[in-house]
């Protein structure tokens, strides 16, 4: 079957993302120290730890992501708070009060999240931001679903595309955020936001693939 994402799997996604961010905290901060204010790793770890604490066992997708979004907004501190916060809040309002999402519904929710991030940060693809990982990830997810792949396979393709998008930020000159103050000197470094977004899709692929790939 094409597959669905249940609320429990989505909670698992967030737990996996939290663990991954914590594991990569030093790496994310190192990336951010090169072109930003060296707080992305600690900010995201603090925020996602709070999410894990508060997520609980919600019965609907919108309730889950409302908690996630508001928690990040209030605990991250840096620009990632409103950006990831907007991403998850929009996912929740678009998904609605349902217990699971099929591929099309998950894609629509993630697309609304991307639109929210673009609106909030006023960023475009190529600005060396998380948008540069999010956009190819969602394009790959949609392409997989359109080709008839099941959700787990499409999510795997999305994670791979997010990683490629992350790698493609290295030569870019930042046009948004603290890194843009550096101008040309921001080139030659991976974008920390795109890097954490790649972790987010890696976690999604793992959660939807089931426990055996954990």
């Amino acid at each position, binding site marked *: 079957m094409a597959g669905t994402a249940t609320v429990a799997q989505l909670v698992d996604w967030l737990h996996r993302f939290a663990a991954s961010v914590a594991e990569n905290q030093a790496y994310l901060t190192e990336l951010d120290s090169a072109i930003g204010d060296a707080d992305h790793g600690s900010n995201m770890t603090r925020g996602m730890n709070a999410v894990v604490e508060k997520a609980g066992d919600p019965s609907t997708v919108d309730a889950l992501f409302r908690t996630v979004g508001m928690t990040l907004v*209030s605990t991250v501190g840096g620009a990632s708070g409103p950006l990831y916060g907007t991403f998850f809040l929009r996912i929740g309002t678009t998904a609605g009060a349902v217990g699971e999402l099929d591929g099309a519904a998950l894609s629509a929710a993630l697309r609304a999240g991307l639109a929210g991030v673009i609106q909030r940060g006023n960023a475009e693809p190529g600005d060396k931001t998380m948008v540069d990982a999010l956009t190819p990830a969602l394009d790959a997810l949609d392409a997989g679903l359109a080709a008839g792949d099941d959700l787990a396979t499409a999510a795997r393709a999305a994670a791979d595309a997010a990683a490629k998008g992350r790698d493609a930020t290295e030569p870019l000159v930042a046009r948004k955020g603290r890194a843009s103050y550096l101008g040309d000197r921001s080139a030659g470094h991976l974008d920390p936001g795109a890097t954490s977004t790649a972790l987010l899709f890696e976690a999604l692929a793992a959660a939807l693939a089931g426990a055996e790939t954990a």
Partner: protein
Amino acid sequence: MIGIVVVSHSPALAEAAVALALQMTGDTRPRIAIAAGAGDGVIGTDAVRVAAAIDEVASPDGVLVFMDLGSAVLSTTMALEFRESTVEVRLSSAPFVEGIVAGVVLAAAGAGLDEADREAASAMTAKNAQLGSAGPPVEPPAAPPAAPEQAAAPATGEVVAEATIVNDVGLHARPASVIVASMAAFDASVTIADADDPKRAASASSLLALMGLALGKGTRLRISGTGPDAAAAVESVRAMTADGYGE
């Protein structure tokens, strides 16, 4: 009176900037709410706190928000979606410290949202002029500077007086704020100029433009006004100048 919200990564920075601004107001103070830090001593901003701060000072006259940098702007735009109040909220593009000073003083003087926002946003212009750098020239928003020949022959209906600055440090921020606050009581448009160099002129209602003139001790001021209360307004400025602005 408009409300003021100060959004900063750092509570200490926000509190100090507000304290600086409040030095320039009298007993009449606007409602000011600070949304700074992300809790637990974390340097950062929190959209939920910003929304609560906006709601705390919301009045029908509106709210003017000053932000430091980066995520402060993102959190504030997000707060506009969270807040419960429905009054007009304006996000100021002014530099943080100058903007807060101008916004607080003007709010205390009864300025509306448009005026306070415009005046705060002109802060860089005033600073550039003060430094004599290549920035755009100071343009007093309310009253154009009087032309030199008018000094000899006042325009019809114009009231003119002269006074000399006695304060040791000249017409600095606090005297300027005293003048601006006093203007709220009059229906008049008053211009203050250096009588020996009348091109150096600013509206008596424009805090940052007055400060930008950097008029020193001993400068002879040409105070001119038009409007129904011009005589009283000009006399008020003349008297407070002679008196050292209460210092």
